[in-house]
C-alpha cells in the first residue's frame, strides 16, 4: 500500500519514511501542504496520508478538508501529526474529517498502531465496496431476468394463447383484440371452425399473472383441442356438444388447477347458422352481451357454473340462445368491466351494455376499438392494470340484394385526375337519398379512393401516362363498394413500409390511411393480368 508522508520538518519526515518502508509500505513524501495535495490528486494516489498539522502553504487540516469534499474519489485514510494536545485542536481535526491523530514527538510503536488501524479500516471498506458492487451486478441481472420473463410471457401469449379470428366465414364476421397490461396475464381466446355454418368461440382468463398464468392458459387451450378431437373420435365423427367438451376438460384439469391453487374462467360458445342458435357453457366468466338490433336491446347471457379449478364435483351445463340476422355477441375479460380510474368507480357492465347498444351496428373491429377507446377515456390511462380482451361475433345482416345504383368512369392515369375521381365518388354517394354517410364518412371514403388511385398512378403505372383506370361504384342499402381496375403492376401493400408517426419520413401513409378510412380493402388480380383494388365502406351508426 502507498502512504503519503507530508511534513516540513525534514527529520520527522525522514524518520517516518524509513520506518514505514521497513514495515513494507511504499512511501511518497512531501515537504509542504501544496505538494501533498498535488500528490493526492495524481493517478494511483496514496490511500493513506500522514499529514503534519502545520506546514507551509496548505496546512494538514486544510488538505484533509479538501480531500473529504471530493466524494467521487477513493477514500484516503488521514492521520494528523500535531504538537498541541488540546481538545479544541482535536475537534478541529475531527471536523475536517481526519481519522486519527498522533502527538509529536512519537515512538515507532505508536505510529504502528495508528497505521495498522488505518489499514484495517481501508481493508474493510474495500471488502464492503466489493460486496456492494456484487449486489448491484446481481440486481441488474435480476432486472434483466424480469424483463426477459415479461418478453417470454408476451411471446407465449401471442403464439399460444391467442387464436386468429377466422376470416371468410359464411354468416358471421369476427374480430378480437387483446391489449396486454404491463404484466402478462393469462387471457386467451381461440376459434374452432367446424364447417361453413358452425364454429366455436372460446374466451378465457386464468387467475394468476406472469408466465405461470400464461402457461396455464395455454394448457387449458390445448386440453380443449384434445377434448374436441377425442370426443369426435369416440362418437365416430359426430360433433360433441359444448358441455361435453367442457366436462371432458374439467375431468382432466380441475384437480391439477386445485393443486396449483389457481383457476380459469371461460366461456365456450358455439354458433350454428343453420339453426340460428348459439350454445354457451359459462364457467364463471364475465356475462356475454347479446345485442339484438330488432329490439334495440341487449341481453346478458350467464350460466351458473363455477370456474374450472373450483370444485371437482361440478357438472357443467350449456345454455341456448336464438339469434337473428344482424345480432352481435360480445365476449370480454374482466379487464374491461373492472377498469378503474385512480379515483372512482369501475367501468362496469351497464356502461359496456349501453355502449354496445349504441354502437352495435358497427363492424366488429370498429366496435371493439370503440370499447377500447371508451375504457381509455374512462380511466384516463392508456395502460391497463389488467389485460383488456374483447371478442365480437357479428351475425351477418339479412341479404340486402342487388346494388341500388351502379356507376362507372374511365379516367387517364394522371395525378390531375384525382380530383375527377373524388368528384365521381361524391356524386355516387349524393345520389343515395337515404344518406348512407355523414360528412365525416364521406370524406374518409374520398381519402381511401384517392389514395388507392394515387398508388395506381404513381406505383402500378410508375407515373406513365397514356394508361387508364376504371372506377366503378356499387351503392347498396347499407354500404358502397368501389372498384379501381387497372392494368399496371399489381400493387402489394405488404411491401410498403409502415409509416413513421414521429415525422421522420414522408411516405407510407397512403396504405395506412386507406385501412383507417374504410371497412374492407382488397388487392385482387384477375387471370387476364388486370388488377383491382376493391374498397367497401359500410354505413356507420354514430
Amino acid at each position, binding site marked *: 500500500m502507498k502512504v503519503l508522508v507530508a511534513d516540513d520538518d525534514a527529520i520527522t519526515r525522514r524518520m517516518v519514511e524509513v520506518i514505514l518502508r521497513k514495515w513494507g509500505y511504499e512511501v511518497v513524501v512531501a515537504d509542504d501542504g501544496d505538494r501533498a495535495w498535488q500528490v493526492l490528486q495524481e493517478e494511483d494516489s496514496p490511500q493513506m496520508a500522514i499529514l503534519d498539522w502545520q506546514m507551509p502553504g496548505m496546512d494538514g487540516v486544510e488538505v484533509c478538508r479538501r480531500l473529504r469534499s471530493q466524494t467521487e474519489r477513493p477514500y484516503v485514510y488521514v492521520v494528523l501529526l500535531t504538537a498541541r494536545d488540546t481538545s479544541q485542536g482535536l475537534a478541529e481535526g475531527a471536523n475536517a474529517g481526519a481519522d486519527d491523530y498522533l502527538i509529536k514527538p512519537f515512538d515507532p510503536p505508536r505510529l504502528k498502531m495508528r497505521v495498522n488501524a488505518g489499514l484495517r479500516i481501508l481493508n474493510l471498506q474495500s471488502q464492503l465496496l466489493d460486496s456492494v458492487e456484487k449486489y448491484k451486478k446481481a440486481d441488474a441481472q435480476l432486472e434483466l431476468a424480469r424483463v426477459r420473463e415479461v418478453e417470454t410471457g408476451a411471446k407465449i401469449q401471442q403464439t399460444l394463447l391467442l387464436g386468429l379470428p377466422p376470416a371468410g366465414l359464411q354468416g358471421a364476421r369476427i374480430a378480437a383484440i387483446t391489449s396486454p397490461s404491463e404484466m402478462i396475464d393469462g387471457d386467451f381466446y381461440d376459434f374452432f371452425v367446424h364447417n361453413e355454418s358452425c364454429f366455436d368461440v372460446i374466451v378465457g382468463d386464468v387467475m394468476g399473472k406472469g408466465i405461470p398464468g400464461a402457461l396455464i392458459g395455454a394448457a387449458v387451450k390445448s386440453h380443449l383441442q384434445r377434448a374436441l378431437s377425442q370426443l369426435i373420435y369416440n362418437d365416430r365423427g359426430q360433433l360433441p356438444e359444448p358441455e361435453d367438451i367442457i366436462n371432458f376438460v374439467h375431468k382432466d384439469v380441475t384437480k391439477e388447477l386445485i393443486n396449483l391453487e389457481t383457476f380459469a374462467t371461460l366461456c365456450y360458445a358455439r354458433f350454428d347458422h343453420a339453426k340460428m342458435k348459439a350454445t354457451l357453457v359459462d364457467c364463471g366468466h364475465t356475462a356475454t352481451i347479446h345485442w339484438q338490433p330488432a329490439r334495440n336491446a341487449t341481453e346478458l347471457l350467464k350460466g351458473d357454473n363455477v370456474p374450472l379449478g373450483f370444485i371437482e364435483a361440478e357438472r357443467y351445463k350449456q345454455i341456448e340462445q336464438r339469434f337473428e340476422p344482424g345480432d352481435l355477441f360480445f365476449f370480454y375479460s374482466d379487464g374491461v368491466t373492472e377498469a378503474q380510474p385512480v379515483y372512482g368507480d369501475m367501468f362496469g357492465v351497464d356502461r359496456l351494455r349501453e355502449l354496445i347498444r349504441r354502437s352495435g351496428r358497427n363492424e366488429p373491429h370498429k366496435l371493439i376499438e370503440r370499447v377500447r377507446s371508451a375504457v381509455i377515456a374512462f380511466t384516463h390511462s392508456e395502460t391497463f392494470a389488467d389485460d383488456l380482451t374483447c371478442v365480437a361475433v357479428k351475425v351477418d345482416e339479412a341479404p340486402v340484394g342487388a346494388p341500388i345504383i351502379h356507376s362507372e368512369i374511365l379516367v387517364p392515369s*394522371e*395525378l*390531375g*385526375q*384525382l*380530383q375527377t375521381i*373524388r368528384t365521381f365518388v361524391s356524386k355516387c354517394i349524393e345520389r343515395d337519398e337515404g344518406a348512407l354517410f355523414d*360528412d*365525416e364518412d364521406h*370524406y*374518409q371514403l*374520398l*381519402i381511401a379512393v*384517392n*389514395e388507392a388511385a*394515387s398508388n395506381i*398512378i*404513381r406505383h402500378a403505372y410508375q407515373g406513365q401516362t397514356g394508361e387508364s383506370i376504371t372506377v366503378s361504384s356499387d351503392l347498396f342499402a347499407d354500404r358502397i363498394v368501389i372498384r379501381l381496375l387497372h392494368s399496371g403492376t399489381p400493387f402489394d401493400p405488404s411491401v410498403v413500409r409502415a*409509416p413513421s*408517426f*414521429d*415525422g421522420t419520413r*414522408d*411516405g407510407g*401513409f*397512403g396504405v*395506412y*390511411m386507406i385501412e*383507417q*378510412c374504410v371497412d374492407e380493402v382488397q388487392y385482387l388480380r384477375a387471370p387476364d393480368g388486370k388488377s383491382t383494388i376493391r374498397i367497401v365502406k359500410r354505413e356507420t351508426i354514430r
Partner: protein
Amino acid sequence: MEMTVEQKGDVSVVNVHADHLDASVSEEFKREMAPLLEEHRYILLDMGQLRFVDSAGLGAILSCLRKSGSTGGDLKLCNLAKPVRASFEIARMHRIMDILSTEEDGLQAFSR
C-alpha cells in the same frame, strides 16, 4: 398554386390559395414553399381555403416542417377545415404538428 405572404411581426402568415393539396400538386407546393422557408423563419400556414389534403399533401407539409426545423425556424398550421383536420388525424400527424384553430391563436402560439 398561388401563395401570398403577409408579415405579422416576427411571423410570416402564408396563405395557400388552393382548393386541394393532393398528389397532383404536392410537388408544386414543395417548390413554392422552398424559397419562403429560406426567407422566413417563423411561418404560419393558413390552410383556410383547402378542402382536401391527401397523404402526398401531408408528406409535403411534413417535409416543410422538417426543413424549417433544421434551420432553427418553426412552422405552424391554422384555419383547417374539419375534413382537412381529419386527414391529419387519420395519419396521426396532428401529434407532431402544431395546429391552431385561428390565425390569432397561431400568432399567439409563436409568441409563447
